[in-house]
């Protein structure tokens, strides 16, 4: 040991004695190198990316939040920096997993995550996406162990709880938006209770459908619905054709009645007019007109018909078993009247 110590001072002067200025130079080079080494070793700066936020702990205690850019820091054990991506929209997949974002995207379906009971004790298969963003990086980093998987647990519990309140038919049709909204509210409420410091942006039910084994039964319902609307459409078509037809018939009936009225009145007027004309003539010369009319009629009636004329032998009537009363009485009597 002692030999080794003695050798150093002896060797240096013998080889090349250094003057004080040279020693100072060597020392300053060493110091500069050491400082550079220390700077890189402790790295007293950090960069926060555009989508991130810098959270600095000094001696373990929360010290400051910094915006994107280049920042100074005290070396490692004194200050610790976290840079959570606060702008990034994070995504939770429930019921499936994106194996390869593609294109074409490939997914792995996880039935144990996606099959759930509905409020009417049916089973529905539902896949869901939840999007969120960190709103409070301090809470996000320090309040919860593994915030992301915690949110996934919350999301899964919320989805089942909400769907458990709806009927299977509501889950994929009219209740869908309501369900998504209720799930979002539920996740947000629990996340706030845990103080995770996130904002749930969107809950989306991807594909809600019945389990494979009962799919045909659901298709049958769809067919029945179509049949129902078809049969109703047919009935509507029947109504749409029958009613105009009936309207036509009604019009026809009324028109016929009107025609009858017109005809009836015209005819009556015509006949009355003729009668009135005759009457006028008759009143001017009653005797002659009456005789003329009578004789003219007889003329017309007797012309061209086979007839047997007999004298005023009443027996012949008896022979034919006829009586003068066989003629219309009015005619007979008038005939007698006129005759005198």
């Amino acid at each position, binding site marked *: 040991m002692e030999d080794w110590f003695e050798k150093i001072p002896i060797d240096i002067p013998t080889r090349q004695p250094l003057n004080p200025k040279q020693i100072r130079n060597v020392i300053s080079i060493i110091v500069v190198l050491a400082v550079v080494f220390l700077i890189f070793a402790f790295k007293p700066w950090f960069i926060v990316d555009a989508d991130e936020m810098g959270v600095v*702990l000094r*001696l*373990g*205690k929360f010290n400051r939040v910094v915006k994107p850019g280049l920042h100074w820091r005290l070396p490692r054990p004194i200050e*610790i920096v976290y840079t959570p991506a606060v702008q990034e929209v994070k995504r939770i997949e429930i019921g499936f997993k994106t194996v390869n974002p593609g294109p074409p995207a490939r997914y792995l379906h996880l039935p144990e*995550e996606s099959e759930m009971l509905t*409020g*009417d*004790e049916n089973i529905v298969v539902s896949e869901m996406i939840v999007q969120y963003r960190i709103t409070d990086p301090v809470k996000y*980093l*320090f*309040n919860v*162990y593994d915030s992301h998987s915690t949110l996934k647990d919350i999301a899964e519990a919320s989805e089942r709880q909400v769907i*458990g*309140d709806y*009927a299977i*038919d509501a889950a994929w049709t009219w209740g869908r938006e309501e369900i998504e909204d209720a799930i979002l509210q539920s996740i947000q409420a629990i996340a706030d209770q*845990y*103080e995770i410091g996130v904002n749930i942006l969107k809950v989306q039910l991807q594909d809600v459908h019945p389990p494979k084994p*009962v799919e045909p*039964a659901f298709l*049958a*319902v769809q067919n*029945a619905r179509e*049949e*129902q609307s*078809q*049969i*109703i459409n*047919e009935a*509507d078509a029947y109504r749409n054709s*029958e*009613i105009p037809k*009936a309207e036509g018939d009604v019009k026809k*009936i009324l028109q*016929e*009645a009107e025609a*009858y*009225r017109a005809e009836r*009145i015209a*005819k*009556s*007027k015509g006949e*009355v007019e003729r*009668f009135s004309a*005759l*009457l006028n003539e008759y009143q001017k010369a009653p005797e002659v007109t009456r005789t003329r009319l*009578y004789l003219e009629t007889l003329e017309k*009636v*007797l012309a061209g*018909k086979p*007839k047997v004329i*007999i*004298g*005023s*032998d009443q027996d012949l009537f008896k022979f034919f078993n*006829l009586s003068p009363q066989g003629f219309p009485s*009015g*005619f007979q009597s*008038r005939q007698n009247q006129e005759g005198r």
Partner: protein
Amino acid sequence: MKKQHLIYISVGAAALIILILFLSSVFIVSEIDQAIVTQFGRPVRVIAGLSSFTDKDAIQKSVDEYSSNSETNIQLSYGAGLYFKIPFIQTVEFFDDRILEYDSEATQVTTSDKKRILIDNFARWKIYDPLRFRQRVTNVFRAQSQLDDIIYSQLRSELGEHELINIVRSTDNILQDEKSTIPEQKLIPVKDGRVVLMERVTERCRKAALEYGILIIDVRIKRADLPDENLQAVYNNMRAERERIATKYREEGNRDSAIIKAETDRTVKTMKAEADRQAQVIQGEADAEAIRIYANGFIKSVTNGPDVIIKGYESDPVFYKFIRSLEALELALDEQTNLLLDTNNDLLRYLNRQTPE
């Protein structure tokens, strides 16, 4: 020279020793940590985390209790920062100050209506009293089995008291859904429901876990599924229900169609009947009018002249009878009529005579 070297070396060694002493006498408690300083295994200092879940009174109480029992004075402080200890003699144990995960294996539970369900639940908890936690649980890994015992028994006993539908549903929301096609017998209002029920479980578990220095924040059901052997039965029910709904749609279709057709037929008949009635009225009026005209005549308006009075039959019934009889005679005696006439009538009487009477 020799002496000077020795001084350098001893100064360097002293600096190193001081550095080591310094480093082993300070420690950093971060925002995510809590810590206990022990001296030969005996706690002397507790640094509890500071968050909205922190209950200072409870921690103070348990620290006081421990202090009086073991006759040592325990220092209590809160929150992250730089802390000191006696080097080598005292050691630090860190405990997580965040909300921690608990996830159990899915377990089968039998409900009060004798249905089996597979419950997969999770809980979130935190170490709220590190001293008590250190004493009774030791560390986070052992906490899992402690939580298993507490949560499993509470969950099982609570869920066993309820029907399946109470565990699935939280509200009676489904009863208000007018569009739903759920059969009547399934529309039973829930008693409590999942949310209330799980709040009760959480409350009980929380009470039970407090003595371990654990604060259970909540216990939730992640999944409540039917075991595979029950699935078939549910599928059969679902099929039967779908068939019922399909039949219902078809029947509704037939019914609606029949109603529409019947209504159409009725409307058509009503329309025609009404038209017939109106036609009858019109014809009746026409007949009445005609009769009036026949009897009383009418006033004929003539263009470019005074109205003309046309007389009806009533103005001379005898004359009417006369000419109407003549008309009738004319019509009654057609081509086929054989006439047998005697000469005793107005026309033929002149066959025998030549002078008018």
